[in-house]
């Protein structure tokens, strides 16, 4: 846990420095129209960097409770990745799959792998939910969501 704390601190300070560099491309001092566009981002980046540094130093100081535990318990990795990786995959292919088909695939995978449902329930649920969502968003609220190449072709012949 302490190591994660330190690593987090390092990452945060690095992030602040990246933002600081981006802020320095702007006028940070007084301009004809008052404080420049970079004035606030610059000082905020400095503040974030300082606060990050304080957190980092705190994590290196000896702590009263030395209980060392893993940041992510070993048995938790699998359930976490089962949520995360397919999601990243669906987003990566969202232009092809669209949100409805992608969502259906995600449901199939999760229900089978984690829920261990029978195939019948998997197919019914992962078919019905995207269908209901489609009618709510596409038909009722007229919110255009990414439909993907297949659905575009079926619906509009594009």
């Amino acid at each position, binding site marked *: 846990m302490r190591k994660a704390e330190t690593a987090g601190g390092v990452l945060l300070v690095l992030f602040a420095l990246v933002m600081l560099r981006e802020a320095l491309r702007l006028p940070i001092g007084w301009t004809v129209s008052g404080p420049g566009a970079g004035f606030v981002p610059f000082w905020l980046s400095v503040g974030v960097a300082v606060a990050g540094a304080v957190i980092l130093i705190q994590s290196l100081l000896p702590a009263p409770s030395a209980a060392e535990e893993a940041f992510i318990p070993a048995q938790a990795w699998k359930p976490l990745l089962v949520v995360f990786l397919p999601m990243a995959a669906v*987003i990566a292919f969202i232009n092809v799959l669209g949100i409805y088909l992608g969502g259906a695939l995600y449901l199939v995978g999760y*229900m089978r792998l984690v829920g261990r449902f029978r195939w019948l329930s998997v197919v019914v649920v992962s078919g019905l939910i995207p269908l209901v969502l489609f009618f709510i968003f596409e038909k009722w609220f007229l919110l255009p969501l990414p439909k993907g190449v297949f659905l575009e072709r079926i619906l509009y012949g594009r």
Partner: protein
Amino acid sequence: MLLSVFDDLLFGLGVALTPYNLTVGIIGLVLGTAIGVLPGLGGTNGIALLLPLTFKLQPASAIILLASVYWGAIFGGAITSILFNIPGEPWSVATTFDGHPLAKQGKPGMALTAAFSSSFIGAFVSIVLFTFFAPPLAELALKFGPPENFAVLILALATFTGLGGGNPAKTIFMTLLGLLLATVGFDIVSGQPRMNFGQVALQSGVNFIVIAIGLFGLGEIFLTVEEGLRLEGIKGRIGFRDLWETWKLLPRYFATLVRATILGFWIGVLPGTGATPASFMSYGLAKQFSKHPERFGKGEVEGVVAPETAAHAAGIGALLPMITLGIPGSPTAAVMLAGFFIWGLNPGPLLFATNRDFVWGLIGSMYIANVIGVLLVLTLVPVFASINRIPFGILAPLIVIMSSIGAYATNNQVLDLWIMLGSGVAGYVFKKLDYPLAPLVVALVLGDMTEQALRQSLIMFQGNPAVFLGRPIAMIFLVAALALFALPAIQTFYRRRRARISQPAEVIG
């Protein structure tokens, strides 16, 4: 003055009672209660997910919908806490302490009745306070110039550090990070693009709703799957005997109810804190004042009454600065405030003059929604509790899909899905390392306003920061803010001194 409040209130009740808005409110309550019941789907995230659906509604109906979801979620959280011993919402954690033991002793109906009734009392008294506090507060805020606005905003942000508890360095870090992320996009004063790393997609800025959905929605899912959710519940329904027996007890807790309501409302109004800390503080306070503190944690009705009253009072209070000053009183209120911009409204005191139906429609709907809400949960507990029978294997992917839709629909760009996923991971890591999420979210919403107020103040006085010295109201706020920022350091100092004399006292987080 007083008469005009009644006038406005009647007008607002009229807005809220139109068949359309009444329907919207009831839908919101049912959805909200369901969201409250489901662990892993929080009120803040639930409201963020519904936000895209409000694009097409009139602003008054939209705010009535979201507020009703909030009230429903506050009522609903208690159901899971009491029957399943798992908090449905963060603000109902304290309700598990005595609510579940009471249910286990064969009195689930009593625990639920006590929770709903006291929640309703806390809400109703707070709504009355709200009605009479809001107009004068808005009138006062109308007189504010940029320096005063800046000072109020800084005070709002300082409350996180002063009253949020936890590591002050992390709180300050998250506050500044939120303000910094708000600068991405373009400069509000000069219109110049900035901080976008040359990415066109970032030019419209970091979308607040996307971040909120990631941090609160996905982050929560990650935490839930890590812990592995087991739901084993007690069957609960409320009969007339439960009502009668519990209501007979309530007058005994009059002092607790009054204390919890005032505490909750006040905590809610303070921007740094919402229903969650209010419920914990109220529980601790009730235990301290009780003649039988040893009964707490073993099924004491007062231990259910105190946190529930305060949580709902705080939920109401959190909307007071939101509607009068444009400053959210809690993360959930911050999400609603983000909606104001989507509906084309400018948050702030002017709303009272320009959008009477919006402001008073919201206030009127609070009365109506909470009366309907309490009747709904009292009668339909078994129905709502059965929502928890939805297997997690379906619920988790469903929340993930809904989150993606919500994140995409706000701006129609795929980049937002990646930002959501990134914020989800960040939310999970931040939660595990005890970084508070609320200051990040609220600061992100307030960033533009704060920067604008600061720069306008500096321009007004040619860059001389001494401007604030000549503005007494601004000075008072700034001094208070400074005191709040220093508060954790002062507390540590005193605790160390006391620790040398006696054993360290236990601190209630």
